[in-house]
């Protein structure tokens, strides 16, 4: 039951094939096997959001997904989103607005914000706070995070010529 099983998936645009123990979580697979330590684990039960990654275009708690469940999936972590420039505006806004302190929750927050803004438009501040309901941040009190996401949404909407 605990013998390693083969796993093939795409992580940050690279096809990966490894053998993993069946009980390995996707979070541990990314952190330990692929050394993508930008994805953090803060609660191991899907409550804190530090481990959020994009899986087939949807944000998932990688601590609640077994690595073997990601067979054939397309995974993007904060490192991948960062390298392909997908979250450049968000990163800039987080930096400008001081939307991070210790930085531990930040990758998960960025992944979630990225997913929110992929829907397009400018969410209300209430929508943003609601969308962040799966992310714990113990440092910032959230206001700066909400500001940064709102700023990014407005910037993108403006760039697309929308109000």
């Amino acid at each position, binding site marked *: 039951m605990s013998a390693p099983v083969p796993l093939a998936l795409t992580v940050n645009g690279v096809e990966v094939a490894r053998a993993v123990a069946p009980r390995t979580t996707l979070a541990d697979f990314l952190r330990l096997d692929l050394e993508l330590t930008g994805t953090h684990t803060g609660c191991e039960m899907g409550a804190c959001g530090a481990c959020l990654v994009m899986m087939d275009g949807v944000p998932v708690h990688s601590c609640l997904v077994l690595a073997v469940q990601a067979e054939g999936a397309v995974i993007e972590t904060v490192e991948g989103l960062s390298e392909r420039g997908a979250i450049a505006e968000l990163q800039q806004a987080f*930096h400008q607005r001081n939307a991070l302190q210790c*930085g531990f929750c930040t990758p998960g927050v960025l992944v979630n914000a990225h997913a929110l803004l992929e829907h397009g438009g400018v969410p209300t501040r209430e929508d943003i706070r609601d969308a962040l309901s799966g992310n*714990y941040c*113990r*440092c910032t009190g959230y206001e700066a995070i909400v500001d940064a996401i709102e700023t990014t949404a407005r910037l993108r909407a403006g760039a697309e010529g929308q109000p």
Partner: protein
Amino acid sequence: MNANSFDSSKVTPLGAPVRRKEDRRFITGKGRYTDDLARPGQTHAYFLRSPYAHARIRGIDTAAAAAMPGVVAILTGHDLAADGIRGLICGWMIHSKDGSPMKAGYHPALAKDKVRYVGDHVAVVIGETLNAAKDAAAAIAVDYEVLPAAADLGSAQAAGAAHIHDDAPRNTAFEWELGDKTATEAAFARAAHVTTIDLVNNRLAPNPMEPRAAIGEYDAGDESYTLWTTSQNPHVARLVLSAFVGLAPENKLRVIAPDVGGGFGSKIFIYAEETVCAWASKRVGRPVKWTCDRSEAFLCDAHGRDHITHGELALDGQGKIIGFRVKTTANMGAYLSTFASCVPTYLYATLLSGQYDIPAIYCEVDAVYTNTAPVDAYRGAGRPEATFLVERIVEKAAREIGQDSAEFRRRNFITSFPHQTPVILSYDIGGYAASLDKALELSDYANFPARKAEAARRGKLRGIGLSNYIEACGIAPSAAVGSLGAGVGLWESAEVRVNPTGNVEVLTGSHSHGQGHETTFAQLVSARLGIPIDHVTIVHGDTDKVQFGMGTYGSRSGAVGMSAISKALDKVEAKAKKIAAHILEASEGDIEFKDGHFTVSGTDRSLAFAAVALNAYVAHKFPTSEIEPGLKEGAFYDPVNFTFPAGCHICELEVDPETGTTEIIKWVAVDDFGAIINPMIVEGQVHGGIAQGVGQALLEGVRYDAEGQLLTGSYMDYTMPRAGDLPSFVVGMTETRCPSNPLGIKGCGEAGAIAAPPAVINALTDALGTEDIPMPATPATLWKIAQGQIARRAAE
């Protein structure tokens, strides 16, 4: 992307909102936290923990577990004792009223004979993988004799309560007092009005988002240890592990605290797990890594607060406070953690004067063991408990005598400085009325009654609550805290290393784990030396790089840590002036240093800082018999006094009596932090502090059952504020420059967490018209109160 978008090629003035240098690595996933590190050949530790709150260990059978695949070693308290590893310590000696020293029960890193709380450490399994270690731990058979538990603070001192430590009768670590009992009793004897209050300051789990972690590594070649750990104060960890625990001499132990994901006090302490990882790495001859999971963090990270308090406030006929009498029972948990004893004493009772001129104060504190996790400093540490008591009883007193509570506060404010309180502290400066006035204006306090009436028409209960907090930061001077029982000095160190090309490394004994020191400290150096901020690197968190330091807690890093840097910069400037004088062929007294240039006064002859730096190392143009080559200076800075940040927070909220939910409508924070280096970072600290304080008031509470089982062991049971629970904050500032350090800084890290709980509860008691609202004021609690009121009104 350009993460360093503030123009880092420029000099950064003090007071500018310079964007953070550390952001780049955190927003790209390139932070390096302890659990991100892997050492060659590392093994994995898993701790077998007690499932009982109180039990004798009759035996531990590890045979079956040891035979399981992937098990490297299983170690117990007997192995620890065999290697001469001593117990964990509490570093602040408190004496009881009768003069006897506190009764610090022995605290081994691995329990040998007895366990004293659920989560106490029984054995460690070292495995090739974490899974192997976990599987083996499940196969260890521990023979427990389960004992009755004393898990409840209110009854732990009672006759017949289970006895936790042999040498602590009545489970009492100390019975301490502060203040003038006789003078206070005299004040009450002539009081026109006495307000009493009974409060529970709820127990909290600090919950930095990064769980604790450690990697111990022993180098047999030079018989030295390295410990990577999630610490707010790596040098203190090294000192304690060397001098007290007996792990290794200081020169054979390197402690590294890399990126640390928040601490809030909980990463100050020297815990069992880190100790065991370092020790076990020699036993197994390989690195040993441990990472706490969140459930373990709830069980064994030191908790905060947990006081039961009775307070009495004496007023004269004009509403002037004339006396304050307090009796507090403080929960210590099962063992005295590293700084546990100073929290409910010198960090608590010394602040009971608040912002008020109170001539007589007397406080008694009983520190009590219970079969629960150790309790120690959490953001604010003692000062939130003091402020909660002071601001609740002041509010209640004003209401009882029919005065507006803002006016009542104002009439009792301390207005001249320095002010000697009756509880040790001498406030150096403050401007309490200024903060109050600004907060009242920003909150539109005057028109609150109309807003309350309007809310009532919508069926909502609206309330407003003030909190005029004060805290004492930068605990100092060292001799004074030593006289109060501190086992360490509370100065800070800095070393400024100027490189030949004129860029600078600053080594600091402070540790940054979210506070942004890499930016604010560099900002100071940039401003002082007139060099671009990207020419300055802050080095911290490694005992092999930084010689010694006291770390970061108690909002001390600005007032104490930066003052040390400032002092070292003074020395750099003085030496550089000497060198510049030789090169410019002028007398030293004629050299001025301004905007990064050394200039001969009244001439246009000048040298840039970098040119002087280069000359300092080339050493051709000055007599090295008089001036040593090089440009590197260190300083140890010991403050002359505490600093006293203070301010006024006002919370306006609405309670829905149908659901019991609280909505914070507006939050005004007006703080006096003295001089501010970076207002952006200060604002962030204020926001985060308020969030934790609101969490305490509305959501958070650690609960144990009568047997000492933890009921709040995960994020399903323990609720911290989420984005939707908090408002945006209105942050204002007033400033009285601190006279007690060269930069005029008071400190800002804990203010929000101190100010917020009474602001919320004062607003809730205003909204619901009852003084009896416990923390956390959850929807269920408020719903019951509101519905009870509705039922009573209907019955009338």
